[in-house]
């Protein structure tokens, strides 16, 4: 399902105050974005990977989550690395197809690698936040960032209802499939249409009932919940701050 659900044992283990996690997230993010070299994002990726592995995420799972953005990035970066030109140029590898020269040079390769490593660093920072903070802590952070209540509530409700709709569509799809709805192309199209419309109707009915249930429990246009977190430890946030300064400083070195 969601990646944060798949590895939610991490969330259960790391129960520190959400703000502490957030400061580390910011440190990692800035460390990998405000950089001139590939060393500091590389450090970020290693740091976070070690942290995950230390908390018993398997190596296979780590590769899986790393591979997820990697596939998108490779496609995007390929267009930066590859140079297509009508004239020959200085390159590490070059080949001629018709009138065109295709290949990559040292500079384009360097830029490509730099972008990939930087993006991986930022991606891992996000993974760090998502895999360690359950959805209610993210909600807490959004509220603390003074986002309008409406947006935060929409976020919470969407997350909740997406899980319900996903579950329902999956059941519906399976039941259609068991009745051989997806055997030919035309019947697939028809079945898919039926699936979508039934999910739509179901969600309308669901929304109706949910609103009734909310009203019955005293909803007056404002959602407030109890907030219980581990106490905030300033020391750890200071460590995060120092980490950030160190990472950004390393990032400014010209190697």
């Amino acid at each position, binding site marked *: 399902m969601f990646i944060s*659900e798949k590895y*939610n044992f991490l969330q*259960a283990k790391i129960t520190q105050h959400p703000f502490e996690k957030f400061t580390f997230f910011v440190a990692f993010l800035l460390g990998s974005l405000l950089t001139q070299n590939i060393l500091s994002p590389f450090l970020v990726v290693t740091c976070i990977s070690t942290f995950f592995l230390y908390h018993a995420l398997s190596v296979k799972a780590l590769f899986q989550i790393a591979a997820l953005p990697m596939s998108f990035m490779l496609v995007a970066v390929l267009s930066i690395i590859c140079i297509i030109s009508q004239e020959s140029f200085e390159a590490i590898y070059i080949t001629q197809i018709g009138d065109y020269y295709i290949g990559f040079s040292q500079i384009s390769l360097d830029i490509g690698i730099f972008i990939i490593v930087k993006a991986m660093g930022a991606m891992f920072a996000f993974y760090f936040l998502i895999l360690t903070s*359950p*959805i*209610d802590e993210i*909600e807490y952070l959004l509220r603390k960032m003074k986002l309008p209540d409406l947006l935060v509530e929409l976020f*919470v*409700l969407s*997350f*909740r209802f997406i*899980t*319900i709709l996903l*579950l329902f569509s999956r059941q519906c799809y399976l039941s259609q499939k068991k009745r051989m709805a997806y055997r030919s192309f035309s019947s697939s199209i028809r079945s898919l249409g039926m699936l979508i419309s039934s999910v739509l109707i179901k969600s309308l009915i*669901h929304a109706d*009932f*949910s609103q*009734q*249930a*909310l*009203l*019955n*429990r*005293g*909803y*007056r246009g404002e*959602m*407030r*919940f*109890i907030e*219980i977190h581990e106490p905030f430890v300033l020391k750890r946030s200071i460590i995060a701050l120092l980490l950030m300064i160190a990472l950004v400083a390393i990032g400014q070195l010209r190697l």
Partner: protein
Amino acid sequence: MSYIQLEHISFEYPNQTLALDEVNLNIDKGQKVAVVGENGSGKSSLFLCLCGIHHAQTGRYILDGEEQKCKRKDRNKLFRKVGYVFQDPEVQLFASTVEKDISFGAINAGMKGEALQACMDEVMEMTQTHDLRKKPPHQLSYGQKKRVAIAGVLACKPEVLLLDEPFAWLDNQQKKNTIQVLDHLHEQNKTIIISTHDINFAYEWADKLVVMKEGRVLATGHPQGLLDNEDLLEKAGLEMPLILKLTKKLDLDIRPNTMEEFLRV
């Protein structure tokens, strides 16, 4: 005067289905009421009217000596007094964790600080949801969701609790737990109204039985008196409780209240 009084209540859905037809009903405070009837007989519609989500087009609804009008302020007061547990817990749970979901109603009821914590602890203890408190709702099993849904309504501290088919799809153990919760609430002198298809349970548990069919109340009264009546059972599409069947078959004169009593005889 009864705690809840319905006089000639009729309710029609916008698509012109007459779901309740001239319903008259009296319920006392602290009573255990079971509503039985076929699917589509109007049990859920009755509950929705009782808790103020739907408003009957005709008739009078009196709760605790006050007539309920459809004004907004009245409705909010009614919501505070009457809690409704939906049949499908999925529609009720919406917060990101169990704990937050339960706290929602309590906070809306104006609780804060220690009172809030005490209320949450009491409710979670009663429904055995303490261990689930940090979990998001979609990671729960059906029975667990059902318990959290009940907890969420109990946290608002309603005087009257409506449960729509609380045992649907539950296994035996879960069902027993739910019955325990109901008994606990009965001790606190709350009025409990449930709808159910489990006629044996209704026979053993309820003080008052309401038999419905096609939006009308066919009969009300003590279950032992009503469920003996074969004509009524036939008409309402109900089965006779096992205990009564057995006593009839064995030609016993007594009418035991529960299966245990029966076995002792």
